[in-house]
């Protein structure tokens, strides 16, 4: 057994904190530890200044006004606050219908489910086979009582980028509040909230080389969007989210987003070259399928299904690399990825999918090692696979009557 840690190719699950970010955070734990809400002494003033500087950095990355940024504990909380907060505030005036898509993160899907339990109605749009939402289907889903739509910018499993501008324009035309989960997008795609017709947007620090446990919600000021608080207390964050601000975490998120703003152009170019190298290598393996559109996609993500091998045994075989089968949130269950199922992928292909996500510290040598590892292990597992044998014998597996259990 090797003691070496596996090569990390799971940057969409989480990223390491950039050392520059960690350095910046440390003083706010030990020296400048004041409560940003303390108005009567310099401990508080220093902390408040640090929080506001970070707010400015987060706002700059997405071309927002700092006053539009509300700190939360992460994108899950941001999604809850945005969806429940806006749905509750606007339901009496507009109605109780919500639109989202079947491939959203669970933090959106489960929040919408909760609203359904409260008496709201929801439409879950099925994306096309490439993972993208059809704008005409989106339009058709809008009803007079549609209060809110929630669509993610970048999908966590397959990395596809939705046309948020077009979807947002439809929402504007129909007086529908538009929320976008951008947890997977910061530092990967340009986000310009001065131009984008988006009312609420969720952010996370730990997907962008910041610490876990901190996120933000963008709440548009012009035209002003109102949300009902989900967390009540001291009235922090203009009453939208009470709770003592986690200064060190916030400082970390600000620094992480500053680095993202300054370095994303060159970083994305480097990562795209690595992704293309990985893709080329993996496609040399027979019966390999890319999940999701390749053009409308962040360069960091490659989601591939290897036909006739089973996902969990594949993960076991490639333990020298850290990747996800399906999404990290569901890999404890034996269900195939609901995102891939929604794209119309067969159960077999959904079961055998691997998400490779590349990041700041991935090297060319990592990619080359991964390609060779996959080639050898897929070969070994196919030797073991009765499905591969049948395929090679020319049997159409879709016509076989299986003894389901």
């Amino acid at each position, binding site marked *: 057994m090797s003691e070496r840690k596996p090569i990390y190719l799971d940057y969409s699950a989480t990223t390491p904190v950039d050392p520059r970010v960690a350095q910046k955070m440390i003083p706010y734990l030990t020296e400048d530890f004041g409560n940003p809400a303390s108005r009567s002494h310099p401990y508080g003033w220093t902390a408040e200044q640090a929080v506001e500087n970070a707010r400015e950095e987060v706002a700059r990355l997405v071309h927002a006004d700092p006053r539009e940024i509300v700190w939360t504990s992460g994108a899950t909380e941001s999604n809850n606050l945005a969806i429940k907060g806006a749905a509750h505030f606007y339901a009496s005036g507009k109605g109780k219908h919500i639109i989202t898509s079947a491939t959203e993160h669970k933090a959106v899907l489960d929040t919408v489910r909760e609203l359904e339990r409260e008496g709201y109605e929801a439409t879950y749009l099925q994306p096309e086979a490439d993972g993208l939402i059809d704008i005409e289907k989106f339009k058709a889903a809008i009803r007079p009582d549609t209060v809110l739509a929630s669509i993610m910018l970048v999908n966590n499993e397959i990395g596809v980028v939705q046309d948020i501008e077009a979807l947002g324009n439809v929402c504007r035309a129909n007086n529908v509040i538009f929320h976008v989960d951008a947890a997977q997008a910061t530092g990967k795609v340009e986000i310009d909230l001065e131009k984008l017709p988006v009312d609420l947007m969720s952010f996370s620090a730990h997907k962008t080389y910041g610490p876990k446990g901190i996120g933000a919600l963008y709440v548009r000021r012009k035209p002003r969007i109102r949300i009902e608080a989900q967390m009540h207390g001291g009235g922090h964050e203009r009453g939208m989210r009470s709770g003592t601000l986690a200064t060190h975490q916030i400082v970390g998120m600000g620094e992480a987003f500053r680095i993202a703003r300054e370095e994303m152009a060159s970083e994305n170019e480097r990562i795209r070259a690595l992704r293309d190298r990985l893709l080329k290598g993996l496609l040399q393996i027979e019966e390999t399928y890319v999940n999701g559109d390749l053009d409308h996609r962040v360069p960091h993500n490659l989601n591939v299904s290897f036909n*006739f*091998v*089973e*996902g*969990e*045994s594949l993960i*076991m075989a490639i333990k020298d690399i850290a990747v996800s089968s399906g999404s990290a949130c569901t890999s*404890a269950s*034996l269900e*195939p990825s609901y995102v891939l199922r929604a794209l119309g992928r*067969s*159960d*077999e292909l959904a*079961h055998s999918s691997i998400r490779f996500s590349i990041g700041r510290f991935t090297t060319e040598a990592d990619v080359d090692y991964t390609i060779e590892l996959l080639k050898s292990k897929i070969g070994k597992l196919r*030797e*073991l*696979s*009765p*499905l*591969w*044998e049948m395929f090679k014998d020319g049997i159409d*597996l879709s016509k076989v009557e*299986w*003894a*389901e*259990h």
Partner: protein
Amino acid sequence: MAYSDKVLDHYENPRNVGSLDKNDPTVGTGMVGAPACGDVMKLQIKVNDAGVIEDAKFKTYGCGSAIASSSLVTEWLKGKTLDQAQEIKNSAIAEELALPPVKIHCSVLAEDAIKSAIADLRAKQGK
């Protein structure tokens, strides 16, 4: 997920991987499971004139525990009569491999594969 050493051993070094001639009258073939469920096992046994299993081969599409369960039963089957083979219980497989509750179905599938292979052989031999 943590696997037991025995599961890892069978997974890393599976015993008796391969195929026997399914048209051979002394070979019984069992194929159980479904791709949609995430596991398919093919188990084949070959009996001699005395009705004793002299060879067993498998191929499995499935998780590490499914591969280990089928690999293990090929070892157990050799040298057994069909009646003895029929007695192999999934609980014994699960116990030997220390399968966690979520993986018990792999041992059930392996037992089903044995029974299916025996049934195929008996049907072929008309008894």
